[in-house]
């Protein structure tokens, strides 16, 4: 990965200041510490900070076509660049580097903006086409690589991270109340909105064309599911084989690199599948990395060891010790540019640091498998709630939820009353497209009870139906399982897992993540599967397990799926208390920043001090409060 930034004075002919570009790109040095490059011509300026992975010698960007009329800066990887290059050379295009970036230039020359449909990769691309006086911004299909922009006066500024855009703003940055409210509902602001006023993201699968004083947006790809019952008409064994072959190829092309490639090994099914594929179907030496927790309830090292032994991998691990999260938290907020409802992203930065210190710049991870192949508890919860909705008076049906959440430590005599209240939201209307996500959003929204009066009066509170702006018109024709997958992929996956917990925690240490399960061929194949093959009754990722059962230990295939978590409140209290926490959550700072009611926050802090804040809601609220305060302090107060 790398960092990109740029400016296009698209409504005027004012020249670009190199000083401004330098200020912008210098904020992205962590994304690309190996090299800087600039292209400036009248009203267009492109900048690039490089993390050298492919073509270490001649890969300096920006890269241009033969007559230098088309210029590209690019962050990411095009995994099928070898095949595309061969094809382009056959067509007569001349290459002056061995990079995947130059493939973009010529592919654009050949196809125009349709070029993007031929790419298999993860990318944020800016193309300057001087023939048409047009800037094109493109982001990958699912949102692996970030790309933001803002309009200021007559110019459009763009960059890989928001912190590189802020120097270009005309006024002091501010957080967007509406976006905060959306995050405290859906876990993310709804794309293209970001937490920062006036700054938008290029959405996953989106193209922006800036030309003739106008910005035209279009979508070139989306998660598409067939109407219910129009799935693959193939038998289960053939589909499992096809899935395995696709994953092998998706992994194979993601091992292309001029530097060594490692892999994360969590002990879960997905990383086990990937590491097994590397071991069995590639020549790449298997080098793996994992994180362990002192809290045994969160630790998966037993499963990791099973796999290390099974695959005989060269492995390194790091222990996330008490104190690590509180020490790294502020830095993680700086890099994520987000509010965190969990501390879980922070240990991922510790893991990427281990990778970098071990001399690696690239890792494969299993991210995306749960969304693509049906692994999450929210999909199970949806199945049970749909089953319950068919007979709302049943006492047995909601009790199945206890099977899903065994920690709901309630005796059978009383469980139903409580379960019906915790999970019954929307049960009378199971056909609404976002039915699956209502319990999560309802619980998350409780954080808003901490809002200050000024915050409450300044915003129109988010309605769950606001999500409809992201949903396609035909979603009602899809199976409820697929609707749930779609919403999960468009919200939590792209906005949080791939970003706050993904790209940002990797790039903090100049490490690139690659995600074979998010190869668009795998997604398009999986989306046509009958949902019953993804989750057989409540057995998650059924087809993946079937496809890989000869390559992954039985104990991993059959294990209980443990969501990745890290300690939240307990990471910040007792011996882990730090001055910055008291400072950020002090009455003065809470009142000064204005988001939260200091009296309420103080009561939560008292509850925490008394050791009584053990529930999910309190943990999530504390993380939201602290991270919002930290975000404001670092980006609004001090920037």
């Amino acid at each position, binding site marked *: 990965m790398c960092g990109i930034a740029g400016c296009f004075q698209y409504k005027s002919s004012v020249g670009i200041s190199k000083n401004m570009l330098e200020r912008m790109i210098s904020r992205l040095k962590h994304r690309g510490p190996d090299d800087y490059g600039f292209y400036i011509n009248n009203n267009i300026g492109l900048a690039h900070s490089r993390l050298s992975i492919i073509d270490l010698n001649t890969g300096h960007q920006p890269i241009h076509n033969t007559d230098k009329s088309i210029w590209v800066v690019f962050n990411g990887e095009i995994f099928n660049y070898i095949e595309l290059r061969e094809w382009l050379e056959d067509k007569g295009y001349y290459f002056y580097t061995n990079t995947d970036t130059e493939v973009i230039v010529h592919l654009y020359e050949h196809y125009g903006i349709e070029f993007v449909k031929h790419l298999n990769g993860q990318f944020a691309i800016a193309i300057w086409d001087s023939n048409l006086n047009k800037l094109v911004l493109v982001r990958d299909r699912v949102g692996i690589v970030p790309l933001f922009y803002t309009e200021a006066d007559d110019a459009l500024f763009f960059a890989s991270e928001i912190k590189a855009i802020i120097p270009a703003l005309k006024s002091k940055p501010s957080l967007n109340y509406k976006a905060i409210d959306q995050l405290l509902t859906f876990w993310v602001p709804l794309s293209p909105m970001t937490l920062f006023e006036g700054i938008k993201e290029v959405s996953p699968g989106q193209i922006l064309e800036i030309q003739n004083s106008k910005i035209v947006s279009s979508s070139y790809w989306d998660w598409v599911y067939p109407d219910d019952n129009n799935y693959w008409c193939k038998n289960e064994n053939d589909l499992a084989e096809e899935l395995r072959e696709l994953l092998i190829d998706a992994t194979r092309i993601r091992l292309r690199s001029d530097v060594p490639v490692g892999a994360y090994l969590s002990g879960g099914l997905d990383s086990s599948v990937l590491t097994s594929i590397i071991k069995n179907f590639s020549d790449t030496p298997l080098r793996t990395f994992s994180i362990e927790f002192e809290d045994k309830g969160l630790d998966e090292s037993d499963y990791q060891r099973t796999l290390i032994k099974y695959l005989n991998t060269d492995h390194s691990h790091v222990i996330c010790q008490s104190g690590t999260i509180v020490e790294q938290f502020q830095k993680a907020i700086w890099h994520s540019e987000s509010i965190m409802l969990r501390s879980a992203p922070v240990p991922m930065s510790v893991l990427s640091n281990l990778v970098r210190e071990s001399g690696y710049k690239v890792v494969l991870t299993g991210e995306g498998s749960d969304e693509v192949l049906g692994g999450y508890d929210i999909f199970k919860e949806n199945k049970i709630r749909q089953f319950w909705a068919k007979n709302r008076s049943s006492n047995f049906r909601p009790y199945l939820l206890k099977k899903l959440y065994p*920690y*709901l*430590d*309630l*005796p059978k*005599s*009383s469980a139903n*009353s*409580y379960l019906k*209240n*915790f999970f019954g939201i929307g049960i009378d209307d199971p056909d609404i497209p976002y039915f699956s996500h209502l319990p999560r959003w*309802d*619980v998350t929204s*409780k954080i808003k*009870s*901490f809002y200050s009066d000024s915050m409450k009066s300044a915003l129109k509170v988010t309605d769950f139906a606001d999500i409809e702006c992201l949903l396609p018109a035909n979603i009602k024709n899809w199976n409820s399982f697929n609707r749930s997958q779609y919403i999960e992929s468009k919200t939590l996956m792209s906005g949080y897992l791939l970003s706050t917990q993904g790209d940002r925690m990797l790039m903090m240490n100049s490490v690139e993540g690659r995600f074979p399960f998010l190869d668009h061929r795998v997604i398009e194949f999986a989306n046509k599967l009958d949902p019953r093959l993804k989750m057989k009754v409540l057995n998650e990722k059924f087809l993946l397990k079937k496809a890989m059962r000869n390559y992954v230990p039985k104990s991993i295939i059959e294990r209980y799926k443990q969501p990745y978590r890290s300690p939240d409140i307990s990471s910040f209290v007792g011996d882990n208390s730090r001055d910055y926490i008291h400072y950020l959550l002090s009455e003065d700072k809470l009142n000064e920043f204005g988001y939260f*009611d200091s*009296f*309420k*926050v103080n*009561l*939560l802090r*008292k*509850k925490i001090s008394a050791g*009584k804040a*053990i*529930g*999910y*809601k309190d943990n999530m609220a504390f993380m939201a409060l602290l991270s919002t305060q930290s975000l404001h302090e670092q980006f609004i107060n001090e920037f």
Partner: protein
Amino acid sequence: MSAENILRSYVLENYLFTDDQSVLSNSDSFLEKGILDSTGILEIINLLDEEFGIVVEDEEMIPENLDSIDNILSFMEKKNN
């Protein structure tokens, strides 16, 4: 402090994070108002044990006994008798 006041203060301070008495009436359902989650119920049970010496049996962990200030007060009276 009366049992009623102890219970009200506990719920107001620990779940509603306020000292505004007007936001909670004694008949408000904790579940319907989203005041308690599963751990909240366990905390209430713990409070009854620690503060009032009332041990809640499994079969007594039902909303009829625990879902509002009024319900808890009635339940406590029943247990004390």
